[in-house]
């Protein structure tokens, strides 16, 4: 039974179509896949980047290099949260003079992306960095915008957007979670 405090924004089919469209948009904007590198942001950006890679392979017959990035060490709120166990960052190619396509699940304040930009620039000097997000929920705190958006979702700051992916959560969906009402 669905949780009454949760509203499904995207189902499995919606996510599949969104990813397919995003894959086409990335290839179209860059006039092909030459010198592209997909970089997924931990945690759910990684399976999303892998799906984009697969999609692009299906119609371009080319496997775009795929990297994983953990931005924890570059966050501006390290002292304000419990330390997280780090995952390895692995980017299999030199990103110098490449077009890096960052992939994340939800774009919110933009602070994660700010950290990712710093992390990438420490790894090399890309020709350009572009941003894919499955959901843009607004409320930016930094001048950062996505280049490719799966779905724009108007939200309030009190709400939560949860992206669940088959590879991690066993199901493909995006849900909007209402804050729990505290009885007065």
């Amino acid at each position, binding site marked *: 039974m669905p949780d009454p405090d949760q509203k499904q924004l995207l189902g499995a089919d919606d996510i599949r179509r969104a990813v397919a469209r995003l894959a086409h948009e990335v290839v179209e904007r860059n006039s092909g896949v030459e010198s592209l590198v997909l970089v997924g942001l931990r945690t759910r950006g990684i399976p999303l980047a892998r799906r984009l890679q697969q999609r692009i392979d299906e119609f371009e017959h080319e496997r775009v290099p795929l990297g994983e990035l953990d931005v924890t*060490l*570059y966050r501006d709120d*390290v002292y304000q*949260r*419990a330390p997280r*166990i*780090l995952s*390895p960052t692995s980017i299999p190619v030199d990103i110098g003079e490449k077009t890096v396509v960052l992939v994340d699940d939800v774009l919110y304040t933009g602070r994660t992306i700010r950290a990712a930009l710093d992390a990438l620039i*420490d790894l*090399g000097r890309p020709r350009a960095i572009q941003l894919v997000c499955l959901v843009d929920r607004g409320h930016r705190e930094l001048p950062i915008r996505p280049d490719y958006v799966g779905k724009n979702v108007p939200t309030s700051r009190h709400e939560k957007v949860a992206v669940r992916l088959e590879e991690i959560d066993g199901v493909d969906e995006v849900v909007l979670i209402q804050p729990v009402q505290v009885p007065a």
Partner: protein
Amino acid sequence: MSLEVLTRPSPARISPSPAGQLQPTHAHKPRRHVLDLDDFTVQEVEAVLQTTAAMKDVLQRPIKKVPTLRGKTLVTLFYESSTRTRVAFELAAKALGADTVSVAAASSSVTKGESLIDTIRTLQALGADFVVMRHHQAGAPYVVADEVSASVINAGDGWHAHPTQALLDLFTIRERLGRIDGLRVAIIGDILHSRVARSNLWGLGLMGANVVLCGPPTLLPAPDFCDGLPWSFLRTYRVDEAIEGADVIMLLRMQLERQSGGLFPSLREYVRTYALTEERLARAKPGAVIMHPGPMNEGVEIDPRVARGNQSVIETQVTNGVAVRMALLYLLSGLPA
């Protein structure tokens, strides 16, 4: 003679948590200090080892620096000499963007009679967020930890503990052999005076290794040494017995400065009876790794050919020492959830 079992015959082993279930224990109780491994859980050690791997990755990049601890200050306060531990801590702090100040007791107000506590309070007033200390007296870091709000990390106290060395040893073993659980680890040498051995007993025991302690009778701890520990250890005077089937051979430095008491007949006899040579090494498992916390007395506890052979991970230990200390500084820096 068969191996003598220390402590209880049926150890209650704590099983490692399944992969993917890692939670920093900070979620329950924030850790502020690292004094020994005796209060670490398996999950915490796992968190450190996993974070160390990510930190090692940072150290292999063209820009070996991340901004995580910008604005934090680490002070190293050493009442005993050190090269690798102190340098590793300083490099670790710098790689995370923190500032470091190094205080050697010999050239500080300690020589004017300033007490340990007053020295620490001064360092805290000067803005230290981390105090890394080495002291000749066991327990000194515990006294300090009660007095300050900074995080205290024990870099060696007397014969008692050297937890960061044990953590880097665990990391190095797992990096080389893929696991710790079930491995046979021989620790050979002056166990009695060794804080490295003591901390490693906690770490290796916790992570499920089978430890064999080996050395001359006078340099082995008493048989009841491990009473009250949840693991058992083997103990032997015969080096061939200790090496037989070992996955890891960890040699300890013969602490020549602590040998005035005539605890063994002569250095030459020690070399003849206990030094790790290529012939003795042949009894270990193929591919067994050889470790030494340093500094080595080459030609005493270890044959130079073995120390530089391809089974030796002694230099890797030093390199990993930076990454493991980065992991600890990072894990100590956040707020509890």
